[in-house]
């Protein structure tokens, strides 16, 4: 193949492969990875055009829950913060919103009311076929990990978890679940 033709194909190929990644919709659609944005973050499109990729949220997170995307979630998401709750969940300390210079993560006071009203990272969902408590082996670890016990997460007689609408999606239940794979996981909202 002629060099010029090869270069042409190479550029065209790269361009077409990058094309679907460049739109915000592609980023919102979220491909393979299930991730949460830091607590209180705006909905995805607004978050992406507010975030200046300074990394301050990650640098201030005392739980080291916030990590940063490479290219895996599209070019628009490059270097933006995310949380994988199974690896390290959010402890709702609200420090990231405090330091975020652009308000991509808004400032939220650390009170139960404020957090419940303004944080909506996702909602926990229980897989009853995996959950030990639903199999008659009382476990209740997720209930004990929940920062909003009896509000976001209630348990039945055998400690079977029931998630309510008040769940803010911090992921501490998913992080603490002793089953592999986890029987409770956060379904992200990305609002």
């Amino acid at each position, binding site marked *: 193949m002629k060099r010029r033709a090869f270069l042409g194909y190479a550029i065209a190929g790269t361009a077409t492969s990058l094309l679907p990644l460049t739109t915000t919709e592609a980023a919102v659609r979220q491909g393979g990875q299930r991730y949460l944005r830091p607590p209180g973050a705006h909905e995805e499109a607004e978050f992406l055009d507010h975030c200046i990729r300074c990394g*301050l949220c990650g640098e201030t997170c005392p739980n080291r829950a916030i*990590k940063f995307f490479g290219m895996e979630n599209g070019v628009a998401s490059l270097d933006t913060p995310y949380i994988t709750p199974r690896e390290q969940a959010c402890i709702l300390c609200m420090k990231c919103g405090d330091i975020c210079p652009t*308000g991509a993560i808004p400032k939220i006071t650390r009170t139960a009311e404020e957090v419940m009203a303004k944080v909506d990272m996702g909602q926990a969902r229980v897989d009853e076929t995996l959950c030990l408590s639903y199999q008659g082996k009382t476990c209740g670890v997720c209930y004990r990990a929940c920062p909003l016990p009896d509000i976001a997460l209630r348990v039945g007689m055998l400690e079977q978890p029931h998630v309510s609408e008040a769940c803010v999606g911090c992921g501490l239940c998913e992080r603490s679940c002793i089953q592999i794979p986890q029987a409770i996981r956060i379904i992200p909202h990305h609002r």
Partner: protein
Amino acid sequence: MTPVDSKPFFFWRHLNKLRWLSLSMVFFMLVLIPFLHLYQTYIAAHAYDLLYPSEKIIYDSMETLSAPFVNDPENDLDLLKGTTWSGRLFGLDLSDPLALAGQIAASGKLLWPFVLTALIPIGLTMIFGRFFCGWICPANFLYELNTTFGFWLRNIGIHTGQRRMSRKFKYLVLFVTLLLSPLLGSVAVAAIYSPAIVGREIYYAIALGGFGVGAVFFTGTLLFDLLVARRGFCRYLCPGGALYSLLGRFRLLRIQRVVEDCNDCAKCNAVCEFGLDPLRDGFGMECNNCTACMAVCPTDALVFKVTAKDQPDRGPGHLSRQYRRVHNKSFEDSPGIEGGT
């Protein structure tokens, strides 16, 4: 006029050393802050005994470093966060003007708390011009070392790139990136702006266990500087440099050549990292007041002036051979010139 009248303040020759001190301090801080963050997370975890030996070393050394300054390291160290792109310096939030420009371009909104953080840098840039590039930029620190490395390579006979391009190209880069931002729906400049990348990647490497995508881009610019054009990224491509040049167009502090003291040795042109032309009074809006030319000038013919305009080309320096041939007569009359050649 005799050269003696316009001798500059002696310290100006040493400003370049001060600049290197400033650059290394900024770089040191960029390395230190992620370690301090790790230290804070270890404190927050209340589990010193469970740390790995390597983590204990970080904990102990950061405790030693910070103990004299803070009572409650877990919270007090929050006063020192971030990078040159956006950060908190002893409680003062500062952001890069380019971050503001990119963010406004992407979202079409002015977020006032964020605008306020960029005001001090913008003001300083309007007074001192593109000083960020020479005095603070962590990428500049590495690029200048890269230039030195290029000199070594040339000394042992390896060819390095010396191409010249149009310095206007970086303005095109700036405007195209800003125009693309709303289409991409993201602050696109953050991905191609070296100082933001360097700060971010140092943090990734220290706190998150490895370099990210930006490291590839930055390595590319280092190679570009080495193989294609000396300081090519800063001179021809950097969107930040373009924005600061525009902001500092009417800067008040300028380096000027004292034509009476100049001997046309052209060392200033050789040392200028931004490819400017101090020898012919060609500073323009892209001079970053880095003072490298002042430090190298053998006759102290470059001085700081408080003025909003460059002087026009004042011709050959009065200590040069060319000038002396033409004005030979006046030369013999004036005393104290013989040493100038």
